[in-house]
């Protein structure tokens, strides 16, 4: 069970809703993923096209926890504004704080992220900041009171997987709040690896929406997250530099 603030979730997979080519495929992928938390972005409406479909209208919003992001924000003030707009929907009080500090790498600005979190916490939001894999920043945000930290595995949408598992491990080991590995996951193996490290959850989007078969990939991610978590809980064996036979060494005379 994944607990964020006062909410508990069975699924440890958080799914983004961007870049799906087809709403029906997306809906099916959401179902197959087993996710209970969906991320969204906040954008201007096209006021001259009221018929434009919206994915939110196609799902039962009571069944999912909505996690809007502040994507598009370049500083704390913009992030806070987007968060307040999202909350005004009346559908959510959780916010993924995403303040991009570099347009090429889309890496988050740690100082602006921290400032945004500070304000949003004082306003009663459930705050989940997207951060780089920096354990010191993660702990500083935890001390501030954020409800989870979401370090990136690699740059957003890159699909490069876990570039620095040691840094993620530091955060997982030191943090007393949920650690959700967000961004850069490319394959089910990546998701399983993140969970095997002891992450509390994985947030991904492009790995599913961009897959050849998003519905099948959604299911693969669900299974990978479960497998990784089970493996972590089961406790893997130590790595050794020499072989240890799996078969008994007694009664060898049978092959003499």
């Amino acid at each position, binding site marked *: 069970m994944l607990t964020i603030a006062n909410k508990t979730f069975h699924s440890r997979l958080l799914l983004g809703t*961007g870049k799906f080519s087809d709403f029906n495929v997306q809906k099916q992928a959401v179902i197959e993923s087993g996710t209970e938390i969906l991320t969204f972005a906040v954008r201007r*409406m096209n*006021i001259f096209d009221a018929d434009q479909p919206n994915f*939110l209208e196609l799902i039962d919003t009571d069944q999912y926890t909505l996690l809007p*992001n502040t994507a598009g924000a370049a500083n704390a003030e913009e992030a806070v504004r987007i968060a307040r*707009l*999202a909350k005004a*929907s009346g559908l959510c009080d959780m916010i993924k704080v995403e303040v991009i500090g570099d347009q090429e790498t889309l890496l988050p600005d740690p100082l602006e992220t921290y400032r945004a979190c500070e304000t949003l916490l004082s306003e009663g939001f459930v705050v989940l900041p997207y951060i780089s894999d920096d354990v010191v920043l993660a702990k500083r945000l935890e001390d501030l009171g954020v409800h989870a930290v979401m370090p990136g595995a690699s740059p957003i949408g890159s699909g490069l997987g876990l570039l620095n598992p040691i840094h993620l491990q530091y955060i997982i080991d030191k943090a007393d709040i949920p650690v959700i590995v967000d*961004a850069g996951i490319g394959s089910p193996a990546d998701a399983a690896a993140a969970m095997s490290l002891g992450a509390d959850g994985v947030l991904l989007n492009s790995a599913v929406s961009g897959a050849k078969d998003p519905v099948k990939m959604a299911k693969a991610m669900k299974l990978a997250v479960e497998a990784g978590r089970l493996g972590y809980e089961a406790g893997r064996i130590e790595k050794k530099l020499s072989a240890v036979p799996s078969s008994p060494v007694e009664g060898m005379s049978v092959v003499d």
Partner: protein
Amino acid sequence: MKVRVNGKSIDLPDDILTIEQLLSHFHLENKLAIVEKNKEIIDRKTYKTRTINEGDQIEIVHFVGGG
């Protein structure tokens, strides 16, 4: 009445006086629209009573797909 909606200058008919009427004017009354007027986020419950005035800067936003 001239207002700016989502960055566009728009001349509204004279009978559009409230946020609710503005949304209906654009056929957005059944959409999950969040409205900001002159940088103030408007409580959904007050769309019926909150008025629009000449020169208002209005933003109408919603949730879209994102990661």
